[in-house]
C-alpha cells in the first residue's frame, strides 16, 4: 500500500530525505507518496510524522496537502485517481501558489467582549475563512492563506493587536500547508 502525502506541480526540486518518498508522474502533476505503515494509526506521533514530511516538501515547493490516511493499493491506482482530477487539482494549486496557511484563535479574558480583530488581519491575507468556535469562550477561529513572505507581517500585526487589546487572548500558529484552502 502506498500513502499519499501531497500533490505538487511537475517538474519540481528533489524530494527531501526526511523519509523514503517517491513522486509519481500524473501528467503535469506529481503525487508525492511513500510506503504506508502496516496500520493506519491515528496517534499524535503518527500525525506529526506525517505532517513533518509534508512540511519538509513544502519548504521548497508549493503543494496541496492530502487528507491524512489517503492510501492506494499501488502506484497505478494513485496515478489514475490523481490524473482523473487533474483539472480541479491544477486549479487548486494555482489558488495556493506561493502561500501558506496560518491558524488564528481568539479568546476573551473578560465577559462581554466583542472586538473584530479578524478585520485587521483579513487585508494581509490572500484568502481567509472562519470556523464555528467549539465553545463559548472562543471568539474567533480563523485560517488565513498568506503569501510566504508576508508571514512575519501577520505575526507582527497579531503582536500589535495583542498589545492593544489585553482583554483578548490571541494565538497564531503556522505556517501550515494550505489544508483549509484546497477544496472549493
Amino acid at each position, binding site marked *: 500500500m502506498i500513502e499519499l502525502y501531497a500533490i505538487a506541480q511537475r517538474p519540481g526540486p528533489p524530494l527531501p530525505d526526511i523519509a523514503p518518498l517517491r513522486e509519481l508522474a500524473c501528467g503535469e502533476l506529481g503525487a508525492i507518496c511513500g510506503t504506508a505503515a502496516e496500520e493506519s494509526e491515528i496517534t499524535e506521533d503518527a500525525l506529526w510524522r506525517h505532517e513533518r514530511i509534508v512540511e519538509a516538501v513544502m519548504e521548497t515547493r508549493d503543494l496541496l496537502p492530502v487528507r491524512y490516511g489517503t492510501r492506494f493499493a499501488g502506484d497505478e491506482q494513485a496515478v489514475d485517481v490523481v490524473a482523473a482530477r487533474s483539472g480541479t487539482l491544477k486549479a*487548486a494549486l494555482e489558488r495556493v501558489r506561493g502561500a501558506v496557511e496560518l491558524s488564528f484563535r481568539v479568546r476573551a479574558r473578560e465577559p462581554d467582549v466583542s472586538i473584530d480583530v479578524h478585520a485587521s488581519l483579513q487585508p494581509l491575507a490572500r484568502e481567509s475563512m472562519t470556523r464555528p468556535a467549539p465553545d463559548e469562550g472562543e471568539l474567533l477561529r480563523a485560517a488565513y492563506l498568506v503569501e510566504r513572505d508576508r508571514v512575519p507581517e501577520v505575526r507582527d500585526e497579531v503582536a500589535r493587536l495583542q498589545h492593544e487589546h489585553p482583554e483578548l487572548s490571541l494565538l497564531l500558529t503556522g505556517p501550515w500547508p494550505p489544508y483549509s484552502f*484546497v477544496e472549493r
Partner: protein
Amino acid sequence: MSTAIAEREVALVDLVDRLLAGGVVLAGEITLSVADVDLVYVSLRALISSVPTAEQGALPRMGSAL
C-alpha cells in the same frame, strides 16, 4: 500547565483540525465481487456527484467488470 506543554497541545489542536478535516480528499474506485465473481464497478466519485443528474437518465456507471 507549563508553556511548553501548552504549546504542544495547542499545536496538536490546530494540526488535527487540518490533517483530519482538511486537505484534498480523493475518492477511490472499488470493484465489488461476490463469490469471486466481479459484479459491480463503482466509481465513488460518480456515485457521489451524479445523483442530482441521475433523473436525466444518466445513472452512475454500474456495469459489470469483465
